[in-house]
């Protein structure tokens, strides 16, 4: 997990020069940040939220509304967006976690639908399906965020800070409690963990990540649309995590690269790209459950095992 973090820093510094154009690299970071938060909940706490678009949308609308309607400065806007997502996380988390497993998934989905309809209906405030416009180009510390590369490195700072934060959280006692809940909730209860509280905290944390990603989305595109709250967005973040590798540190960003490049290439070549997304998801679920990074991790682990087995000649052919 540690090496994955340190490898990601230099790779991400050069990412915009590898991708077909700079803008896509910014999107990769934003979706990657969203998915990193989602992965804390799914990959490390074992809870499948089907309504994480709520936080992406709350973050984006919180930021967008404060800036476009109340002329708030950049930092106040972003803080407001993250705050909205946090409050959303507390309320939705408290209600949804009254049920466990798949019931929980369905409840989160239901709440994200409610938010979608609210954003759609109150078009005088949110702009409805025309979207919320009027977010200006910001120049924090004299850096013009209208320039694509500047926006990328602006997001990069947040991304690295938040993944470093995730590293701290996952290594803390809280992180260990999360994994205990994931492995066996009954056992975790028997060990004296307040699993309900662990799940709620994990839910709120992952909501904060989603909210910050949404805030960056609003600053980046200077536009917020109800699509951010659409249920398809819940599917997208799940897709990103599954393909990248659920429960791996680097998985969400790899999944995000795969998803956005796929989106970019396929949409030009083949209009029905959602079908390809569906087929890839089915393929990964059936045959490659550990995802790309999970697969690499397994490969590395088995390679190390083999080498260790060869070194200690007493053990015959490790597997």
């Amino acid at each position, binding site marked *: 997990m540690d090496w994955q973090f340190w490898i990601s820093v230099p790779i991400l510094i050069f990412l915009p020069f590898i991708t077909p154009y700079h803008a896509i690299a910014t999107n990769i970071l934003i979706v990657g940040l969203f998915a990193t938060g989602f992965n804390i909940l799914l990959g490390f706490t074992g809870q*499948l939220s089907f309504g994480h678009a709520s936080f992406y949308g709350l973050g984006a609308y919180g930021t967008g509304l404060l800036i476009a309607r109340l002329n708030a400065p950049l930092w106040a806007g972003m803080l407001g967006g993250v705050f909205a997502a946090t409050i959303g996380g507390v309320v939705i988390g408290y*209600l949804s976690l*009254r*049920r466990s*497993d*798949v*019931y929980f*998934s*369905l*409840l989160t*989905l*239901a*709440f994200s*639908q*409610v938010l979608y*309809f*609210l954003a759609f*209906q109150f078009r005088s405030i949110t702009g409805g399906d025309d979207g919320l416009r009027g977010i200006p180009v910001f120049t924090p510390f004299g850096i013009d965020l209208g320039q694509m590369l500047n926006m990328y490195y602006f997001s990069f700072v947040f991304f690295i800070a938040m993944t470093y934060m995730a590293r701290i959280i996952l290594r803390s006692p809280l992180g260990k409690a999360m994994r205990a809940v994931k492995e066996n909730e009954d056992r975790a209860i028997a060990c004296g963990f307040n699993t309900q509280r662990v799940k709620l905290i994990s839910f709120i944390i992952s909501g904060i990540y989603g909210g910050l990603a949404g805030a960056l989305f609003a600053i980046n595109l200077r536009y917020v649309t109800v699509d951010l709250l659409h*249920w398809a967005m819940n*599917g997208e973040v*799940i897709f990103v995590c*599954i393909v990248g590798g659920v429960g791996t540190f680097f998985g969400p960003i790899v999944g995000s690269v795969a998803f956005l490049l796929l989106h970019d290439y396929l949409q030009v070549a083949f209009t*029905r790209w*959602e*079908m390809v*997304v*569906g*087929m*890839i*998801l*089915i393929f990964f*679920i*059936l045959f490659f*459950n550990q995802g790309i990074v999970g697969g690499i991790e397994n490969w590395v682990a088995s390679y190390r095992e083999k080498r260790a087995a060869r070194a200690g000649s007493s053990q015959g052919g490790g597997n």
Partner: protein
Amino acid sequence: MLHGEVIHISADLLLLQAFIGLSLGAIYAMMASGLSLIFGLMRVVNFAHGSFYMLGAYTIVYLISLIGNFWICLIVAPIIIGGIGILIEVTGIRPLYGTEEFNPLLLTLGLNYVFVDIIRILFGLGGIGSSIPQGLTGMVNLGFMMFPKYRFFMIVAGAIVLFLVWLFINKTSIGMVVRAGTKDNDMVQMLGINIRLVWTLVFGLGIALAALSGALIAPITGTIPEMGMFIVIEAFVVVVIGGMGSFAGSIVAGILVGEVIAITNLFYPQAGTVAIFILMAIILLTTKAGLSGEG
């Protein structure tokens, strides 16, 4: 309906809307009982349930254009789609039993994308219009009011089908295995019963119910590729309200949700969908496991 600033809603209109709610409720109850049967027995959340509803609608509209006889098509369409459901259970979902609980949900999510796009490719992005079959057009006199004949037919058809499913679950030997399996699958298997076969059968039955719901609604709403997207979420809400895995709960909750939507539509049409989510939140906060207390 708007006269000045006061909304006048007569008792007649309220009654009419209540009956329309009942016809919606029949659809919700069939959708939800299929979902609930599948979930209760094999713990699979079938996210593609709305796609099968959509496939049922497209199949009947297409079959009617070929054969012409509504009644034959109404029976054949669910059988075809139920067969596809069985094929998917055997090839796709069976390998996932015993893995992470949410894997089948994610697989069916993937299927959802694929089905919707296949239909877009075959039948185009726009919808296909459809008309109410001959003999079911016009109004029927219920004695106390006039009511659209086709909607009345939906209520009757829903009631008959759900009664047959109830008979199947409660009065047949396979149904006994289903009921026992819903309580404890391992125990049923230990008794030497091939429960996997029953699972496949129940999956097919649940899918056929979804397809039948779609086939019934198609003559009044027509079809679009995305028609299953919202109803699957609404059906989930029904199942959560009724208590997951409870057949009776699904039916009661289905009718309740149909009524809530129909009545809200009368007062404030935009709020219909939000109203059922609020209803769900109230049920969740006040009960332990939905109306039925099971699951």
